[in-house]
């Protein structure tokens, strides 16, 4: 009997502990009998639209010169003319036979070509004609890289090759006369270098665009190949791009190869901001939003409404370009917008918009994530700014224009805020 009582007491203690701690867990989620039994009725989402943009502009130059991952060589007449510039500022002057103990000076070269990798190629369309020019101006291009636009003249033509469409796989080699390279190798410094301008010739119905990989793509950079002797037993050299100017090592590294925009679409008018194109443009948009709205926890959606301005004269105006919104991270102390637009960050949850330059519509950019980051901060610490840019920036000639705050009122940027009314007093 006594052991039975102990057992009963144990059961009682177990039950008590179980109840005591099990009771701390609640499951209250409901909804079956709503709204009849639910204490509160659902609030209606409301919205308001107003002019919240205080500054908008677009800045060209993205990616910066020399940092392009791809070099878009285009020949579209008055619309767009671009060339790729590749520098081989350190050409070898010696070589060694496999059985020799010492190096020998190069006095002849053979099998000279330029090998490039490209990302786009029309294997079904028209053939592509590439022309190589000697764009070494003797130093004038060191201070002004765009000066080489004058170097694309017949007397500087190094080589040309027309590649059938079905040969446009991923690389192409363009033979260069050995005498032209040998002359460079044998020339006294600083003339012993080769700077090549690559141009596409679309006359005669050929392809008018090619995107080649730049030296920012390790293993896929454009290389100069040649044999430093006429003897086929001598191994070929592969020379990678290198620039010896300017003095700044970071800028010098970028100048190994870069994109030259010889002819660009006309700059946008004052009432237009532009995204994309070559050189690539980013739009900078700064807001003036009352803190009463920013700091309200009830804002559930913020939509920037931009009216697209049709631009049928833009390159590939009927093809779409993806435009994305970015957060500007640069502090207000950075007043140079070009620099400020270098410090941008993608949203965590990002919406993308595909637009063609020839179209016109009201375009929505969802920026609630950005607006939420401004809560509890001041404009002096966190700029109320965002950027619009294209993920294919610098890799595509396509562009999109939007009306700015200088446009007529009906076309100006607007901000639409969706919000929920403030909760009531919590009483039934």
């Amino acid at each position, binding site marked *: 009997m006594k052991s039975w*009582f102990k057992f009963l007491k144990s059961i009682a203690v177990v039950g008590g*502990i179980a109840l005591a701690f099990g009771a701390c*867990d609640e499951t*209250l989620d409901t909804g079956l009998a709503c709204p009849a039994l639910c204490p509160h009725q659902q609030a209606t989402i409301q919205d308001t639209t107003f002019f919240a943009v205080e500054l908008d502009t677009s800045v060209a130059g993205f990616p910066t010169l020399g940092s392009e991952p791809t070099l878009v060589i285009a020949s579209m007449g008055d619309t767009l003319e671009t060339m790729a510039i590749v520098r081989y500022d350190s050409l070898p002057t010696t070589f060694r036979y496999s059985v020799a103990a010492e190096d020998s000076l190069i006095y002849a070269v053979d099998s000279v070509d330029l090998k490039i990798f490209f990302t786009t190629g029309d294997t079904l369309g028209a053939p592509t004609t590439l022309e190589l020019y000697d764009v070494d101006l003797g130093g004038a291009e060191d201070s002004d890289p765009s000066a080489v636009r004058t170097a694309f003249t017949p007397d500087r033509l190094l080589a040309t090759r027309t590649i059938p469409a079905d040969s446009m796989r991923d690389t192409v080699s363009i033979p260069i006369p050995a005498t032209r390279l040998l002359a460079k190798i044998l020339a006294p410094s600083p003339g012993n270098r080769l700077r090549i301008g690559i141009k596409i010739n679309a006359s005669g119905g050929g392809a008018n665009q090619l995107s080649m990989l730049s030296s920012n793509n390790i293993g896929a950079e454009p290389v100069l190949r040649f044999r430093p002797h006429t003897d086929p037993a001598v191994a070929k050299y592969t020379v990678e791009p290198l620039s010896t100017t300017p003095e700044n090592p970071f800028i010098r590294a970028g100048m190994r190869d870069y994109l030259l925009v010889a002819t660009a679409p006309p700059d946008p008018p004052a009432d237009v901001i532009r995204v994309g194109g070559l050189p690539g443009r980013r739009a900078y948009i700064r807001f003036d939003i009352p803190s009463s709205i920013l700091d309200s926890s009830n804002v559930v959606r913020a939509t920037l409404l931009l009216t697209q301005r049709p631009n049928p004269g833009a390159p590939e105006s009927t093809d779409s370009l993806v435009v994305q919104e970015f957060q500007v991270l640069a502090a207000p102390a950075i007043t140079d917008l070009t620099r400020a637009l270098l410090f941008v960050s993608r949203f965590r949850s990002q919406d993308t918009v595909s637009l063609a330059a020839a179209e016109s519509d009201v375009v929505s950019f969802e920026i609630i994530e950005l607006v939420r980051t401004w809560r509890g901060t001041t404009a002096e610490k966190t700029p109320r700014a965002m950027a619009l840019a294209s993920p294919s920036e610098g890799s595509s000639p396509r562009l999109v224009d939007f009306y700015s705050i200088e446009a007529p009122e009906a076309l100006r940027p607007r901000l639409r805020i969706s919000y929920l009314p403030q909760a009531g007093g*919590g*009483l039934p």
Partner: protein
Amino acid sequence: MTSGMPVRVILAAVIAVAIAQPARAQGTLSTQGLGFPPGQLSTHAKTMGGATGETDPVSPLNPAAIGLLSAPILAFHIEPEYRTIQVGGRSVRTSLARFPLFMGALTLGGKWVVSLSASTLLDRTFETVTRDSQVVSGDSVKSTITERSEGAINDLRLAASYSPSPWLKLGLGVHGMSGSDILQTTREFDDTVRFSRDAQRVVIGFGGTAVSVGAVTMFPRVGALGVTYRRGGALRTYDDDVVVGSGRAPDHLGLSAVYLGIRGTALAVRAARDNWSQLKGMAPTLNIHEGWDIGVGADVTGPRFAASAIGLRAGGRWRTLPFSPGTSPVKEQTWSGGFVVPFARRAVELHMGALRSSRSYDLPVANGGPASEKSWTLSTGFSVRP
């Protein structure tokens, strides 16, 4: 008990807790308006249908009843409730944790007893999860709304009892009604790219007073009578420091009669009435109802083990809940049973009971038709006489 016993006990408790995990739930009939009134009754009284409420020293209703205590006491209660609601042929389950009663009493000489207690007058704990669809700026926007309320109006009572004679106890209680309710509303949108989660939090406070008087008369081997009257003072609702509603704490009038003429048995009956309508000004849209709270119950001495006897209890209770979703009231019927296990020469008592409650309400057909709610409440009370 061997040294291995605590391990087995804890292990068994863990398993029991795991088994006790609740299922899903619903909007309820009982948590309308300002909340659900647990009744301010001890486990002992509840398992007897509340019939001893006005004579029970641990139930903070009758201040005179604490005079029945012969030694200092500390007591607290736990009451998880497991509900099932049925609307339109569908049913959902929920669970709710309550800690409705803490009480301490001190004897002063042979005639005076004082006590301090905290009990839940109205428990406003609920959560609703609903789906919403709206058209905003031409877009169909779908979201899930969660409304959660956690809070209560509590009754803090300081009571004193005086015994002018062995058969009569008189009592006076001073009550402070206080508490808060945290209401959180969150809306999660299906479209997380365009929309951001909305969360709003509202905290309301309650503050008021009341005073109670009571008497208990004892007739040895015959019975006892307890009568209570609580007069409600001003009770206000606050949003921060701003008064947003005002009313009066509900008056309470209750009478318990206990028959002790059968050896080892107590038979009790109770009738009580609370003037809940005095809360009318506390909130703008309350559907308040008043009705009797009637209970009957029995307590018999059960089998003896070692030096202690186990008390077995059962009862029934019928009452009208103060708040409803419409013009008609929600009626509640409860059947209960339980026992008490003493330990350490009755210095510690574990009261346990199970309450089966049924509530019903005729919802409009458009809202699903008649609704019913059934619940199991596992009431556990610990009392310690240090």
